[in-house]
């Protein structure tokens, strides 16, 4: 058991083969790195497919995409953007309302690769313990960024935001931003399990607000097959989101409805019993899953 927790997913690798047991992880890395690459081929090779960064980007001079969090802070600081920024924010909002806000974290955010690496190394090295901090701190920090920004009339959070610092740094020049990134890596590695993304990051917290009614969900059609190996808990960056759906707490349906599920799909990978799968529909009763996972 303890061996399985050090190497969660070992059973799944045995059962399905390495590739199938890493399918969503690989797809996710492909997405994160691919998006980054789209931003980088411009400055590196002069192929201007995408200009800008995650705050706002302009693809092929036709598709604007705006980060709703930074735009909201700008509005609260008393500023009014131009038309393209509005179109961009509408597209992004619709997209994340459909796929779940925190899909941003698992599939786009470049810092996720850093914190994932820290979490992986931490489990490999068997580092345990650390301070107990409520996962709701991020919402307090989120609120604070709005209040402080509005009070002093500026986008104050952008002075510190490690997400944009990293992404902008990679594309426009890093400066000392790598120190911030390294601090987060070391913090997650030695101090707190999933410390940054799971407890503090207001960007993730903001995107989770868009996840309430998302269509794309992790469903558990085979939850009865669960053998309590705990591998899904071991790999999930937001493990508190699994239990309700897996154990049918309070008669919950076989679908993860928590806004903080990042749709990373790692639970699907590591489960040797094929309990999880992606599915569409915001309610437990949606007719996507085949067979056994009917809500009690």
């Amino acid at each position, binding site marked *: 058991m303890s061996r399985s927790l050090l190497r969660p997913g070992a059973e799944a690798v045995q059962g399905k083969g390495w590739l199938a047991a890493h399918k969503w992880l690989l797809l996710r890395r492909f997405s994160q790195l691919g998006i980054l690459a789209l931003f980088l081929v411009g400055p590196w090779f002069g192929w201007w497919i995408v200009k800008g960064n995650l705050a706002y980007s302009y693809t092929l001079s036709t598709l604007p995409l705006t980060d709703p969090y930074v735009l909201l802070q*700008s509005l609260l600081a*008393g500023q009014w*953007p*131009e038309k393209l920024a509005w179109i961009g924010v509408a597209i992004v909002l619709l997209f994340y309302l459909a796929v779940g806000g925190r899909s941003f974290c698992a599939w786009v955010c470049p810092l996720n690769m850093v914190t994932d690496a820290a979490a992986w190394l931490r489990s490999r090295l068997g580092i345990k313990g650390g301070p107990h901090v*409520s996962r709701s701190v991020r919402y*307090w920090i989120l609120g604070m960024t709005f209040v402080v920004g509005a009070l002093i009339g500026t986008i104050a959070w952008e002075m510190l935001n490690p997400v944009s610092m990293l992404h902008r740094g990679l594309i426009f020049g*890093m400066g000392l931003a790598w120190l911030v990134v390294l601090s987060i890596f070391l913090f997650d590695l030695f101090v707190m399990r999933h410390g940054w993304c799971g407890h503090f990051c207001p960007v993730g917290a903001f995107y989770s607000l868009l996840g309430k009614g998302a269509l794309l969900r992790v469903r558990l059609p085979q939850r009865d097959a669960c053998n309590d190996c705990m591998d899904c808990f071991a790999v999930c960056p937001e493990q508190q989101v699994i239990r309700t759906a897996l154990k049918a707490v309070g008669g919950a349906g076989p679908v993860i409805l928590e806004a903080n599920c990042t749709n990373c799909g790692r639970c699907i990978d590591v489960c040797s019993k094929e309990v999880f799968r992606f599915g569409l529909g915001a309610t437990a009763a949606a007719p996507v899953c085949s067979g056994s996972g009917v809500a009690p």
Partner: protein
Amino acid sequence: MSDKAQTTTVASGKRRQFLVDSARLACGVGLLGVGMGFYAEHAKALPPAALRPPGALPESELAAACIRCGLCVRDCPFDILHLARPEEPMATGTPYFVARQRPCEMCEDIPCVVACPTGALDHSLTDINKAQMGLAVLVDQETCLNYLGMRCDICYRVCPVLDKAITLDPQTNQRTGHHTLFIPVVHSDYCTGCGKCEKACPTEVASIKVFPRYMAKGQLSEHYRLGWVEKEKAGHSLVAPDIEHHFNMPEGMHYELGKGLQQAPPAGGEAGDAVPRAFQEDQL
């Protein structure tokens, strides 16, 4: 009864714990917020060497409007703009350029402004000659070659707003006594702050530098009026009557500009008339 009392104590204990936890959280996050606020507030002043792209809002608003996307940086054909890195002393991620490295070429179509998706670079700026990125200041009269008596004139000649933003004003060279200094004088009505003069100045450290306007520009008090301007507007002197100027000279002497005291007063120049000396000097 006692059962009920117990549940209430448990409930109130829980509520208490919740309140304490919340207070602790609020304090921690509040502290972070205060720190962040101070930091952001400090970053509202632009360092002297950094200039904002054309159309940039005043410094106090720029960091609120700019979402740090870098589209302006990308669409600048001369690649002069940078996004501030976290260690640089201004709002992280906002665009700037350094005149001595690469000045703004004042593109007629102002692509940086057009690209900006927010109001950070004001889209109402369509004439690049109206840009106010900064203001040139001839900072060192001891090293400016024209002040030293040479005809460098480089700043004057590279200025895109030729003969308006910088003029060369002739003055007597007091050192030689019979040469002219051509003093570069910057006119804030026309200077866009593009930085070409600073870039081109041949002295080891530029003798003319472009600073953010808030640093470089003085301002008269509201109630100040320039007598000669008002006089021209009114068509006549406002301090009536306009007294003819006289010098209070020793008997039989008069004063000529550049020559000093002279014998033999010119016709009509009476020395020592009745107007008090102090009042006469006021008319200078």
